[in-house]
């Protein structure tokens, strides 16, 4: 790789271009993180609500439905 100029040697245009690119990437990263949170939240909700409903008490054996105290 050729010798890269140090940040101190940047022209104002180069510095502005660098900041613009970094800001753009940071915004995209923020959107991506939010999307991941939404995705995992959605998966969790669907997986939890998609479970078979609990067995109604009427169908359980009497000893299980109303255990003796």
């Amino acid at each position, binding site marked *: 790789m*050729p010798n*890269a*100029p140090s940040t101190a040697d940047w022209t104002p245009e180069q510095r502005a*271009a660098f900041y613009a*690119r970094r800001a*753009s*990437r940071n915004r995209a990263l923020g959107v991506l993180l939010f999307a991941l949170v939404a995705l995992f939240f*959605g*998966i969790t909700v*669907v997986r939890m609500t998609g479970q078979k409903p609990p067995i109604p008490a009427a169908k359980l054996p009497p000893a299980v439905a109303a255990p003796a105290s």
Partner: protein
Amino acid sequence: MPQANIAAEHVSGTAMAPGSGIAPGTAFAEWRDYFALLKPRVMTLVIFTAFCAMIAAPGTMHPFLAFTGILCIAVAAGAAGALNQWYEADIDAVMKRTAKRPLPAGKMGKDEALAFGVILGTGSVVVMGLALNWVAALWLAISILFYVIVYTMWLKRRTPQNIVIGGAAGAFPVICGWAAVTGDTPLLAWILFAIIFLWTPPHFWALALFMEADYSKAGVPMLPVTHGLANTRWQILGYSALLVPVTIAPPLLGLTGWAYGGTAITLGVIFMWMAAKVARNTADVPAGMAPEKQLFKFSLLYLACLFGALVADRLLIPGAGL
């Protein structure tokens, strides 16, 4: 291109292309560069075929989980594309078609591309396993590894049959899509796999014929470079003759209805006619390769219509042949 030079490029890490217009010290990849690394155009086809396989597969699925499955397949395809570009930055730099990609253009370091691909690939497999099932996740992992290791690293630079074997990499998403719904991979899923597998050589060799100079310059042993244009044209016809019967197999085996079957026959006749035109062509410069360009464009439409017909068939006659 000498193998030693290629190897040297691969261990050198970050490489900034001269003349990229970006001072090395200010190069900082934007989100667009990462997006370009995912090969979004290739991803479109992968998403479409996987989506069609998910609809064709028997069974139901919550729409959000179906979306998650498609997302995982798309991200995995993107990860494979990123790893492919990481490994092939040297070839991409000398080919006109690929010279503007983020790595050869100097917008991103090779290490960044490698990390990006590995993280996306691993993440997509894990999410597929946790959200849907581990059979689909296994096929997803196999598809990434096949594309990166078998196709990109092993075959592409060594054999003119690279596209034939590499076609399997593009065919795995239908297996992943099907497995995401059912948790298994029955005969129809593998027939869909075979359709994409056999479709790939005519599709890519048609492109390689009129881009032959580019591949030759990059030292990639594509069939037109190693075996000549006439041989490639006859192989296109041969693979087309194998492809068409496979597309017609599902209705014959009772796995789909004839809404799909009629479409497959019609499209197959047109495909064979175009492949025959390519086989008869003798032009050796791109300007005279209209049949090759037509076949390349039609092959995209062909696959889209074929899978579209499969979905339509399944929606018209739910559960047919299952």
